């Protein structure tokens, strides 16, 4: 019989079993049963626990995020629909709202929300003082809020063209991607605490770059996607090692012919696949994107999933109402639509398109109307896993926490 290695317990002559005697797998299994807030506290106990929690427990807990409602920005107010149900969350959100001055909702990605605001650098001064520009990221469920500064600029509104790249099931770190003009991306990585600029100018054709781009971006599978009015879907691959040439890989994907050059469209991730929806006077169409990497060049194909006559959706509405798709539900065959009349009366509704017999508008709240102010809607996925806070000060404090040598080294992006 082979002699097997003694475990901790046997070495202690089986006198005392402590939690550290458990194998890493068992430790992870036990730790995963704890709520995320307790786990965040437990990262302070010792290094090996911190390593297990951040690299195994949190990604496991974030592998499937719940969805109950969307977040939108209406009249400079951020609304969480069907998300704020807990009293404590509501109270916390109220205090955050008070600290945010002119709030702008920019993006929501896998439970994290990105916004932008400015404050006067010298509030006391009467004349226009330079404005301090800040991005803020927050997670409603973990009640975390953090800010990242951006250097002041005369035209701060340009900073609003930004998006989040965050996937807690892979890594706790997030990136803020600011679209610097039409030639570069300025990316903040919470792991390093710095902003880096990456050029992509020559990878996109002139007419694609110069056309108007839809403000909203969608993060999916390591890339950010944006719609261009040139009739293309632009894909920016943001999750990659920064190469010496400091360039980011970008490609443009042709949109379906019938949907080209129309602003009444949106993209979104539904059931793990990129979808595109377009509305014209007669129909609402929904496509899904198939990506084949058979040959060396990438092959993208749009598969038309549904064509729904607009009349079916608008039958009970005022005539001259038109539809604009806003966002996709992450799991159901549901799309979030905005119904507008002459661009001033606007309602946000969810529309279930899956089963033809069951097609219907979920008229959630017939009395809410937002006016033309509601420009963006994001599906808000609920993430219980925390994100790192205070990362901006990282570079200055020279962080040197080393991983325990005896544990396997898993690289995290």
């Amino acid at each position, binding site marked *: 019989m082979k002699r097997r290695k003694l475990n901790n317990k046997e070495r202690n002559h089986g006198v005392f079993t*402590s939690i550290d005697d458990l194998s890493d797998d068992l430790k992870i299994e036990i730790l995963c049963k704890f709520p995320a807030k*307790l786990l965040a*506290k437990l990262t*302070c106990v010792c290094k090996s626990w911190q390593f297990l929690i951040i690299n195994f427990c949190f990604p496991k807990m974030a592998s499937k995020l719940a969805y109950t409602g969307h977040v939108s920005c209406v009249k400079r107010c951020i609304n969480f629909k069907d998300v704020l149900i807990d009293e404590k969350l509501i109270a916390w959100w109220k205090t955050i709202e008070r600290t945010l001055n002119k709030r702008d909702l920019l993006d929501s990605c896998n439970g994290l929300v990105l916004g932008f605001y400015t404050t006067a650098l010298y509030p006391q001064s009467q004349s226009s003082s330079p404005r301090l520009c800040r991005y803020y990221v927050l997670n409603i469920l973990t009640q975390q809020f953090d800010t990242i500064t951006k250097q002041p600029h005369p035209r701060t509104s340009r900073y609003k063209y930004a998006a989040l790249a965050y996937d807690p099931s892979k890594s706790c770190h997030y990136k803020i991607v600011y679209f610097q003009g039409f030639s570069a991306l300025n990316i903040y990585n919470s792991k390093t605490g710095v902003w880096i600029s990456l050029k992509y100018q020559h990878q996109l054709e002139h007419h694609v770059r110069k056309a108007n781009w839809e403000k909203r971006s969608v993060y999916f599978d390591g890339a950010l996607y944006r719609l261009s009015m040139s009739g293309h879907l632009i894909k920016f691959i943001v999750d990659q090692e920064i190469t010496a040439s400091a360039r980011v890989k970008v490609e443009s994907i042709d949109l379906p012919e019938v949907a080209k050059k129309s602003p009444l469209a949106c993209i979104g991730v539904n059931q793990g696949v990129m979808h595109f929806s377009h509305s014209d006077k007669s129909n609402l169409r929904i496509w899904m994107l198939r990506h084949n990497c058979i040959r060396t060049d990438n092959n993208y194909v749009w598969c038309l999933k549904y064509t729904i006559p607009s009349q079916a959706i608008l039958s009970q509405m005022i005539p001259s109402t038109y539809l604009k798709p806003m966002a996709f539900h992450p799991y159901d065959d549901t799309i979030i639509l905005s119904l507008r009349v002459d661009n001033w009366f606007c309602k946000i509704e969810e529309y279930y398109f899956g089963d033809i017999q069951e097609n219907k508008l979920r008229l959630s709240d017939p009395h809410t109307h937002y006016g033309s102010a509601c420009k963006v809607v994001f599906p808000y996925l609920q993430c219980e896993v925390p994100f790192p806070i205070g990362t901006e000060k990282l570079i200055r404090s020279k962080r040197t926490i080393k991983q325990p040598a005896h544990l396997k080294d898993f690289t995290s992006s």
Partner: protein
Amino acid sequence: MASSSTSVVVSNKEKENKNTKKVTLKSSDGESFEVDESVAMESQTIKHIIEDGCANNEIPLPNVTSGILSRVIEYCKKHKEAAGESEPSVTSYTSNSTTNPLTEWDTEFVKVDQNTLFDLILAANYLDIKGLLDLTCKTVADMMKGKTPQEIRETFHIKNDYTPEEEAEVRKENQWAFE
């Protein structure tokens, strides 16, 4: 006439044996425990051994001592009884409701010293008894709630390998978890 009555007696006996089929579990320190097969099958590990036809005389469990094994059997018996009496949906292992009749019994069951508690976790994991694993893990979680990291280290005898600077930093990053 006589033959038919004998056959009736035989078939009854067979039925009886089938209902109370027993298995013997042997602990690491050589002690044997005879239990109902249905009770033993609360453990998925044992269930697979029996189903694979490998349970001849005894099932050896070299990772479980007699003290722990007797407790595990006690747990399985109690939960099997409860499942038999009422609908399966009532015996919810992760139930927080007070309507679960076993909650009180479970709470008493885990009032043991730390050493025994972790031995139970190891046994529940090895024997693959979900309910017991969930119960014991929840107990450990409850022991940690409301304690500071230092108190947790003391309770569970964990060595602190952070330098004071590192500890301050990780504490600051997770300040929100302490509120």
